[in-house]
């Protein structure tokens, strides 16, 4: 009895601790949907998972770097992060003058983001998971057909320097997740699995998944044109790239399944 109790206490302690130092997550209930580039035959099924409510902030990232100095700007390996890595920071441990602790961490490479999530016992979301969670608006799990939903995303393209805004300043969506739209782009684990060749007109007659999306950008399918930009930005990335407008958040498989 005693060892059992001790174990429970121990587990409880570890659990509360991890909740404290890890950002809040919410449950995303899985489902089936047709992504931008899909046809009926290409439905994607998402199993339940948990997602960070907010993107990783500068503060989170500062703490991460303290623990894992190999991700300091001065020490990072060039093959894991290009010269833009944390370029706006004053030093290895200080943010730039205009940067807020609560703004999303950007100028972070895929390698760094991937490692960050791993160190928290999480992972980066897949493109399909990210898109699945992000097709919700405030009230609907799939708002992609709504004019207001698309208008919101598109208006973000016109707003300069949103990467300086704090997390939580956009809307809370159906899943209780914030900032999927309107703040920064976000890394996904398989960002380069849907390739845009860079010559988007050529993609039209290539036998790849995405070309349908590109071809579908017509009068009836404005939703695609809002989403297409995300695929375009993902297609332009390499894993060592870091960008001012690109942050990340983590996910993990749902506990319920375990």
């Amino acid at each position, binding site marked *: 009895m005693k060892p059992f109790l001790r174990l429970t206490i121990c587990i409880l302690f570890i659990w509360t601790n991890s909740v404290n130092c890890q950002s809040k997550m919410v449950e995303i209930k899985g489902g089936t949907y047709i992504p931008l580039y899909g046809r009926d035959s290409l439905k994607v099924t998402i199993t339940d998972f948990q997602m960070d409510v907010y993107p990783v902030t500068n503060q989170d990232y500062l703490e991460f770097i303290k623990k894992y100095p190999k991700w300091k700007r001065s020490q990072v390996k060039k093959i894991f992060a*290009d010269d*833009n890595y944390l*370029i706006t920071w004053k030093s290895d441990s200080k943010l730039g003058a205009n940067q807020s602790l609560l703004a999303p961490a950007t*100028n972070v490479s895929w390698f760094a983001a991937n490692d960050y999530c791993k160190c928290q016992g999480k992972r980066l979301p897949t493109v399909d998971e990210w898109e699945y969670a992000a097709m919700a608006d405030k009230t609907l799990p799939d708002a992609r057909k709504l004019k207001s939903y698309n208008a919101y995303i*598109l*208006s*973000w*393209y*016109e707003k*300069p*320097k949103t990467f300086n805004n704090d997390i939580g300043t956009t809307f809370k969506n159906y899943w209780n997740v914030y900032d999927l739209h309107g703040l920064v*782009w976000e890394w996904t684990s398989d960002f380069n699995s849907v390739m*845009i*060749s*860079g*010559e*988007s*007109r*050529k*993609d039209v007659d290539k036998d790849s998944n995405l070309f349908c999306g*590109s071809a579908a*950008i*017509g*009068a009836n399918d*404005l939703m695609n*044109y809002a989403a*297409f*930009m995300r*695929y*375009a*930005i993902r*297609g*332009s*990335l*390499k894993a060592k*790239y*870091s*960008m*001012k*407008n690109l942050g990340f958040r983590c996910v993990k498989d749902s506990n319920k399944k375990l």
Partner: protein
Amino acid sequence: MKAKQKQKSMLSTLLTILLLTLTVTSCVDNEKKEYNDAADITASREMIAELTSPPNVPRGVGKRKAKKLIVNMEIIEKEGTMTDGTTYMYWTFGGSVPGSFIRTRVGDEVEFTLSNHPDNKLPHNIDLHAVTGPGGGATSSFVAPGHEKKFNFKTLNPGLYVYHCATAPVGMHIANGMYGLILVEPHGGLPKVDKEYYIMQGDFYTKGENGDPGLQPFDMQKAVDEDADYVVFNGSVDALTGDNAITANVGETVRLFVGNGGPNLVSSFHVIGEIFDKVHVEGGSTINENVQTTLIPAGGAAIVEFRVDVPGTFILVDHSIFRAFNKGALGMLKVDGEENKTIYSGVVQEGIYNPEGGGIQEMPIDDTAEVATSISNKSLAEKMESGKQIYMKTCFACHQVEGQGIPNAFPPLAKSDYMNADVNRAIEIVLKGKTGEITVNGKKYNSVMTRQAISNDEIADVLTYIYNSWGNNKTNVTKSQVDQVKDGH
């Protein structure tokens, strides 16, 4: 001694042979310079390309040899002014719409670096129509924000070419201003002219209608429907008017590099009051002469040249004319210098036209005086009604339906301090026309209004209409006032 002499002669023979071979090889070299294929032209030395923002054009290539030309182009997404009170988020090559002008010659080896500013949100690329190769460079230049890409190409065909962004959605990138011109001059360069300018038309699609204030977002649906809110030269309504007008002096030859970025509309490019002496049709090698209006396809260009013979303001338009007066496709070329009455006289004689007979007669003053008495007691309502009709026939094309005018081209009549300050001056302008700079509501206008061929009675009515509309001071202008002004001069 003899041996020495023999040695000397041998040496000289050797020298001669050497010299001969040298000359022979240099001859061969010379022959080689007449290349059959532009791809064979060798590029000597490196040079950094001079890039200019519109309406300026870099210096001509002249006689320079083909070179390795370094072009550094930066992509910047930034907010700019579309028209007074309306802004737009432009995506630009080099910070301007159209993008920087690139000037090369046949055989140049261009090393092109495309950098995407770190603050930008989107990836971009560039497709240069002057490039022979897949995608015109687009495949090799797809670049994420905060990064740069480099690629090389050789200019093979002389001509004026469009470049543009070709990242999905392509139409949107172009509609936001991502286009410009690259000129490939032939060997020896284009003939010298006095003035060269860079003009590019584009159509814009905004959420609000033309003139709606504030930052106007792009409207995909309107773009798909090809329902443009703005059709402009050089990216904004006033890019080529007022103080931004391009200039020349009488006797000079002007060359315009005119492109059309689209994304949708084809331009009927015309300069009011000029005839193009030469047009490089579609920017290619065919030269047409004596052209009034030249068609410039979306994604195409033309080089037009003309000598300016008389002074004045020449209006550049897309002769799909509603675009010019209602959507902004209007620019100005101001020409200074001596008048030449043989080429253009101005008004020489005015008369009344009577098809029943009599030919041209002078306006009989007595008659009008008589008519005046007979209709001078029209009510204000009657004058307003007739005035409105005259306005819609004679005035509205320039001053617009609500008297709002066209910024930088035609002054407003609505709430016009200039009108309200002096009735007699307004009467005189309608009677005799007006040329030169005036200030209306704090803005300068330098344009031409011709004298209006309407009777004194009609002038009284139309001015009364204007003074009693759109927040003006409600002056009731009488015909006798108009008569007085006319006779007073």
